[in-house]
Structure formats: structure tokens, C-alpha cells
């Protein structure tokens, strides 16, 4: 079933794109990650121009997070206060991201920087998550109670001034910590065309020390608003949002997200985390190979 994409200027198989959206939506519902880190590279691999892929993937992440946010809100697992601080940081970060993006584009090194960023961050976070969840699994198997974590959040976070209470997150910390975290993910959203959930979720768990239950809902809440802002920015500046492509991705992902949310209720969180760690490490490994191997396209063309 071929369909022509009016902005991307090429025709695609609609079912493939819907399927892609479905897989990403499933992950999004299960882990609270936007899934942009999978959508954008896969769309580019399919032959869709990188800007169109990033711009349209952002609106797909919006759609996938809405259903997640609604579900989590009804369950009371969204910390609005924490989410608000993260969003404020995210919008500032996205603005900074635009400037960095322009600079790198001018230097012609945007692809390489994106590649290296992907490998470093996915590799680092994937490794961290894998280590943690394997330890948790061993503890589960041997029947021992997992050791209580000695410190709830990173000492640097505790050192920041002006503390707020975040009841649903079970935290009493400075809002500067989530603000900076939000900014970092905002920059990544603009640079990599991802929601930033795969950075946000582990950072909220391991750096801020949030309770596991509210992490997924709150990160989805932040992703929802930051991707909305990004979609608008793309529509206004790059004019690369392809509504037909976004629609196809949405059909798949909103359905997938529902299934994912249901699944996440039935699977033990330890298994969930090790699964996410494996996926993240796999993408990182693929990206690392991509940097080292001779690429299919030695040449790239930029139309002036």
C-alpha cells in the first residue's frame, strides 16, 4: 500500500510506517520513553530525509505520550510540580539546542556529533541500567531482599540550595536539579530529534532518586509538552513536519502505547528495566558500528 508523502517528497509503504509506529508506541507505553531514539534513525534508514524524520517523529512522540499521560494521571502517578519544572527547563534547552544545531550544521559536523552523542549516552545509560537491574534480578532469584540504597539522590543534587517538596516523587530537593535535567533533555530533543525519555527516566531514578511509580508518568508528562513545542518550532522554522507521515506513525503508536501500558502492569519492573537496558545497549552498539564502518553513503548532498 504505497502512499505519497507531500512534504518528504517520496512514496512509502503505509503499512511499514504504521508497524514502525506500533513497535515504538509499545515501548513508549511500557517504559515511559518517547521512542524517538528508535523512530528517527529507522525513518532515516527507510530513506526519509533526516529533517523530515526528526520533525515528524516529534509529533508521533506527542501522540504516544498523550495516552500514556492520561492513563498515568487517572492512576495518580504524575508529579505535576516536578513535571512543570522539567518542562520549563526543557523549553529553555530546546531554544539552546536550536543555536547549537545551527552552529554544527554550519560546520558540517552535525551527523558525527549526533552519532557520537547517541553512542556515549545510550551506551552509558544502558550500561548503568543493565548493571542495576541485573543486581536486582540476582537479589530476586536468591530470595535475598535487595539492599536498601544508601543514598537516595546524588550528593550534588542534595548540595543545591532552595529546597522544594515534591510529594508524589517522594522528594525534598532543590528545583534547580530537575530544571537543569530538563534543559539537558531539551537540548537533546532539538539535536537528536528524540523525546529524551531514555535520558530522563534513568536520570530521575538514579540522580534525583524519585520513586519508581511516578517516574514513568512524570517523564511522559514532560515529553508531551516538550515535543509539542518542538513540533511547533519545526513547523515554523524548518517547515519539515509531514502530516501524512505523522498520521501514519500516530495510527500505529497510539495503539501500541495502549498495549504497552497494559503490559507494563503485568510484568515485574525488574524485568522491564533489564529489557529497556538491552534495547538501549543494542541501539548504542549499532550506532557505534555505524561510526566505525565505512558508510554506504560517503557523500551527502545539501540543497542550497
Amino acid at each position, binding site marked *: 500500500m*504505497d*502512499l*505519497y508523502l*507531500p*512534504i518528504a*517528497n*517520496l*512514496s512509502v509503504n503505509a503499512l511499514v510506517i504504521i508497524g514502525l509506529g506500533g513497535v515504538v508506541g509499545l515501548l513508549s507505553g511500557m517504559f515511559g520513553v518517547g521512542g524517538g531514539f528508535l523512530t528517527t534513525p529507522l525513518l532515516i534508514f527507510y*530513506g526519509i530525509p533526516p529533517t523530515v524524520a526528526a520533525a515528524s517523529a516529534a*509529533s*508521533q512522540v*506527542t*501522540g*504516544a*505520550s*498523550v*495516552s*500514556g499521560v*492520561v*492513563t498515568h494521571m*487517572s492512576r495518580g502517578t504524575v508529579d505535576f510540580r516536578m513535571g512543570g519544572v522539567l518542562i520549563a527547563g526543557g523549553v529553555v534547552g530546546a531554544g539552546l539546542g536550536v543555536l547549537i544545531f545551527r552552529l554544527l550544521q554550519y560546520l*558540517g*559536523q552535525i*551527523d*558525527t556529533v549526533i*552519532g*557520537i552523542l547517541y553512542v556515549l549516552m545510550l551506551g552509558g545509560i544502558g550500561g548503568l541500567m543493565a548493571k542495576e537491574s541485573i543486581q536486582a534480578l540476582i537479589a530476586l532469584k536468591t530470595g535475598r531482599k535487595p539492599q536498601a540504597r544508601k543514598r537516595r539522590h546524588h550528593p550534588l543534587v542534595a548540595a543545591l540550595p532552595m529546597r522544594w517538596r515534591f510529594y508524589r516523587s517522594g522528594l525534598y530537593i532543590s528545583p534547580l536539579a530537575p530544571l537543569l535535567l530538563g534543559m539537558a533533555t531539551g537540548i537533546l530533543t532539538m539535536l537528536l530529534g528524540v523525546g529524551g525519555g531514555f535520558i530522563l527516566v534513568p536520570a530521575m531514578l538514579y540522580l534525583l532518586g524519585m520513586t519508581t511509580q511516578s517516574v514513568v508518568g512524570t517523564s511522559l508528562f514532560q515529553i508531551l509538552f516538550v515535543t*509539542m513545542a518542538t*513540533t*511547533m518550532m*519545526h*513547523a*515554523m522554522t524548518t*517547515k519539515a*513536519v509531514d*502530516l*501524512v507521515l*505523522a*498520521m501514519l506513525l*500516530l*495510527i500505529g503508536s*497510539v*495503539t501500541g*502505547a*495502549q498495549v504497552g*501500558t*497494559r503490559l507494563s502492569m503485568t510484568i515485574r519492573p525488574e524485568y522491564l528495566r533489564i529489557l529497556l537496558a538491552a534495547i538501549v545497549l543494542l541501539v548504542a552498539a549499532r550506532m557505534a558500528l555505524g*561510526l*566505525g*564502518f*565505512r*558508510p554506504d*553513503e*560517503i*557523500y*551527502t*548532498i*545539501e*540543497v*542550497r
Partner: protein
Amino acid sequence: MRRTLILIAAALLLGAADEPQLVPDVSQRDVEIQYSFTGADLLLFGAIVYPGGVRPEKPADVVVVLKGPDQSILMREKQKVAGIWVNADRARFQSAPSFYAMASSHPISRIVDERTAAIYELGVDKLQLSPSSLNESSELDRFQAGLVELRQRSGLFVERPGTVEITDGVLYRARLPLSARVIVGDYTAETFLVQDGRVVAAAVRDITVRKSGFEQFMAVAAERWSFLYGLTAIALAVGMGWAAGAIARRI
């Protein structure tokens, strides 16, 4: 069939000129890009009119070239630096055709010499890209080869030597594929009549490629009403996401 008859009639009327003439046509003057557009197959055909209606003893050759709008491009080349592939070299070209397809009745090297091929831009390696950056000529050749390779793979550069059929020495026809990745704009279909390594006649037909209906509307909307377009994208995403959630909670 009727078109062919008209062509023959035209051929007889024009038969008085000294030089041979070409009466070309294409199967589609307007290519409309719609939702199901997966490319188009264009038929380029026409008649060769010889002075006095006398055909030469040695049959002439026909070359047809379908060319898209020129683009100004910046090309980057990746090289391995410290174990990873990074963009290292670059070159700028003022006039790279966005689409180029060629068919000929025999391989180009057997029809014309190098110089003539270069003058008439016959063949993807003969395109005049007008480099505007200060690269060495060996570098430029490398970039041009890279461009050709890249565009050939996405079906934007096509060469089909030996596919022009000539019937009775006066009617010719060739098929050229228009990739689904073509950009909109004014295209030209050029026909060259070659005799003894010399181009003796040339004729051009214009083809317009444009988006129509919904596709046209979307392209215009994204460009002109970008704020509303962005708002629509967001509303669509939020609406669909919310609807799916609402349905799932009922089940």
C-alpha cells in the same frame, strides 16, 4: 495512434527544409503527483523529417534526455579520521540537475565522440555542474562521481543506452522512468538526432511536474500557514492519542 498519424502528416508538411528536423512529443505534458504517486513512466516519441523525404543510407541515431530543474548544492565527503567516519571535504556546485534520464539508440560512446557528448551533456558523467568552490579538478571528478552514484541509486539519474527504438528510420520511441522522489518544477525532454558523430537536429518539449489536490494543499499549507499547520499537527497528535486512551479505558 491518432497522434502518430498527425505526426506523419506534420512530417510530410515539413519535408521541404534542407536539414533534417525532429517532431517530438511526450506521453504526458503534465505529471501530477497524487497520494498514490510511485513514479511515472514517460514515453518520448516522435518523427524524424528528412529533407525531401529521402532517408540517408546510413541510419541516424536518436538520443533523448529528460532533465529536471537545476539545483545549487553543497556536497560533503566522509573520510576516516581517528577510527570514525566524519565529513572532511566539501565541494559546491551551482547547477546540478535534480533529475537526469537519458536513452539512446546505441551506446553513447559509439554514437558521438567525447567532446560532442560533453557539449550536449549526453551521459551522467558529462553533466556540467559548474563547481563554485576551489577544489582541485581531480577532487571535483571524485565528487561528481559520488553525486552520480548517489543519484543513480535513488533513481534520480538514469541511463538507458540502446533503448530508443527507431521504426523505418523515421519514427522513434523511448521510455524513461520518472522516480517518485522527483521534485516539482519544469522539466525538459530534449531529443537529438545524430548522424556521423554530429548532432544534426535537436528539439525540446517541456514537461511540468506538480503536486495536485491534497498533496498540493499540504505543501502550500506547510509553507504559507506554518503556525496553523503546526497547530494542526499538534492537535492531531493530541486528539488521536487521547481518543486511543479513551477507547482503551472502555475496553
